[in-house]
């Protein structure tokens, strides 16, 4: 068995983990599992793709930055895409989720998110068709780094980006007032209100963070694999499994859960075959639910 699966697994795990942070925050702060989260991923990616296209139309063809497959247009587009995805999440909350939350039945919100997911995804299919597309069709040469492992410059850059983002979110959650408010709200909503935490602004912030990370994870998939309207929906089960494995509400848990699932998937692809990849998250999910439903870093509900 070649060690290549470590690199593949870490990359897949990064994408799952970044998405799972959003899932876990939405669950712990807004108290519902958001089935539309995967579609934030796809929307963010297509938004970024559209901006890249617009920049290309304005400035002509731009050479990529030395060893990478993309140049500054993608970086600028990603920043815009992140903003747009955050806005999409806020908009969806405003027209749909917030109104249903006010009625007080959590599970209705879950169903609405399922409906929204279907509508969002089909809208992408309508606008961009279901044919897969790419940010770049150039093929990168993978460099051997020993132990039979090969890695491309893009992959190195994205792994670095993931580490920076995870560290950033962790510091945000633990060292800033906003982050502490989020934690307070997730641990005890009533008490958080009593001490004067502005719930509405924390909710807004949660959506923006979740949407932003979903967009970045989606663009990573777009750079390394391909862009399809279903790309986010297919990530949904791994993301939920990662969030539950890590313990709902825990950001480091979501990332670690994502990495474990990514590595397990990559290992399974090598041992059993790529067609069974999606089964890995389900098996891990069931194992967690039977053995330790609160996950690795979870806290028991009070």
């Amino acid at each position, binding site marked *: 068995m070649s060690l290549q699966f470590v690199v593949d697994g870490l990359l897949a795990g990064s994408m799952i983990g970044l998405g799972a942070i959003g899932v876990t925050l939405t*669950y712990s702060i807004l108290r*519902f*599992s958001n*089935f539309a989260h995967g579609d934030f991923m796809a929307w963010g990616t297509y938004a970024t793709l559209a901006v890249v296209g617009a920049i290309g139309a304005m400035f002509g063809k731009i050479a990529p930055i030395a060893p990478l497959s993309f140049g500054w247009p993608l970086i600028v587009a990603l920043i815009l895409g992140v903003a747009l995805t955050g806005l999409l999440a806020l908009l969806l909350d405003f027209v*749909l989720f917030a*109104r*249903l939350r006010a*009625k*007080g*039945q*959590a*599970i*209705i919100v*879950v*169903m*609405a998110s*399922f*409906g*929204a997911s*279907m*509508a*969002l995804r*089909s*809208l992408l*299919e*309508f606008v961009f*068709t*279901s044919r897969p597309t790419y940010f770049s069709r150039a093929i990168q040469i993978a460099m051997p780094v020993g132990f039979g492992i090969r890695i491309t410059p893009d992959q190195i850059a994205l792994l670095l980006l993931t580490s920076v983002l995870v560290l950033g979110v962790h510091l945000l959650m633990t060292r800033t007032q906003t982050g502490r408010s989020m934690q307070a709200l997730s641990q005890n909503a009533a008490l958080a209100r009593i001490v004067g935490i502005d719930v509405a602004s924390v909710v807004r912030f949660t959506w923006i963070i979740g949407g932003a990370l979903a967009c970045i994870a989606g663009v990573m998939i777009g750079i390394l694999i391909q862009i399809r309207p279903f790309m986010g*929906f297919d990530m*949904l*089960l791994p993301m*939920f*499994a990662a969030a*539950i494995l890590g313990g709902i509400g825990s950001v480091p848990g979501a990332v670690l859960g994502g990495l474990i699932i990514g590595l397990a998937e990559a290992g399974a692809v090598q041992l059993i075959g790529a*067609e*069974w990849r*999606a*089964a890995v*998250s*389900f098996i891990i*999910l*069931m194992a967690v*639910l*039977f053995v330790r*439903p609160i996950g690795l870093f979870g806290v028991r*509900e009070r």
Partner: protein
Amino acid sequence: MDLLGYGAFFLTTALIFSLVTLGLNLQWGLTGLFNVGLAGFVAIGAYTSALLTTPDDAARLGGFGLPILIGWLGAMIVGGVAAALTGIATLRLKSDYLAITTFGVAVIVQLVALNAQKLTGGPFGIGFIPRPFGSLAETPLLFNLSNLAVVSAVTLIAYLALEHLSRSPWGRVLKALREDERAAISLGKSARFYRVQAFAVGGAIMALAGALQAHFTGFIAPDNYLPILTFQVWVMLIVGGSGSNLGAVVGSILVWAIWVGSGTLTSVLFPPEQQARAASLQIVAIGVMLCIILLLRPNGLFGDRPLHVRFGKQAKVVAGESSPGS
């Protein structure tokens, strides 16, 4: 005559959907269990019955050539067991875990249907599934009408049985659990035990619907059981009104009519090369419809579900509304 035949065909499909919706109504409407993987349970039923009843096939396991009724029974048993296992795994946890797990079940069933060629025939599916009135296939009208008769009979039986169940002491316990779990438990009812039962019976009904559909079309493939099926059935239940069996049946027929109608409309309005895109717009419209109904009329047409409106409060609202008018 063609129109009559088409009407029968349409109603048969709609009634099969009704059967799935009835199963979902038992799970969600009556018991409050959220199933977003129902396409998986429908597929389990269809494949089980197909395996049991098709003639022997060298390319895959079985084809046991058993009678159709045995196939249906087998579908219900396997579907019920699958649902019971899902329930046992998740029903002691918060409701969202059930949602996520059922979602996973549908993904796994889809995966097995696509990849376990020896069992399911892979992407090409299973053909030559015996039809109850296959000998009548030469006269389409008679064939369609007899299919309609069979499906109506099964749906009617399921409807009456569920109506009876929901009025029985068993059904009252489920409703009590849905409305106020703590009070029901304090009366000595085991929440988990009753919920697993309801989930299993619902799963069995969905599997039966899948089996009916398989024998009605004679051919099944993994594509029949995509998440869009789950979504359609949910819209049917919400439109009809969750909690009401009558609502489940009427909602299914209504939504299926809208679905088929809008499909015909898009095929008339859009050129052939744009059809696939137009079809995705159809899904957008139904998704938006679901969200709007949830926002504006969460009880649907016939729903009995007092969405968090306690009895006293409801009485007050009614009083408040009637006083200015009078």
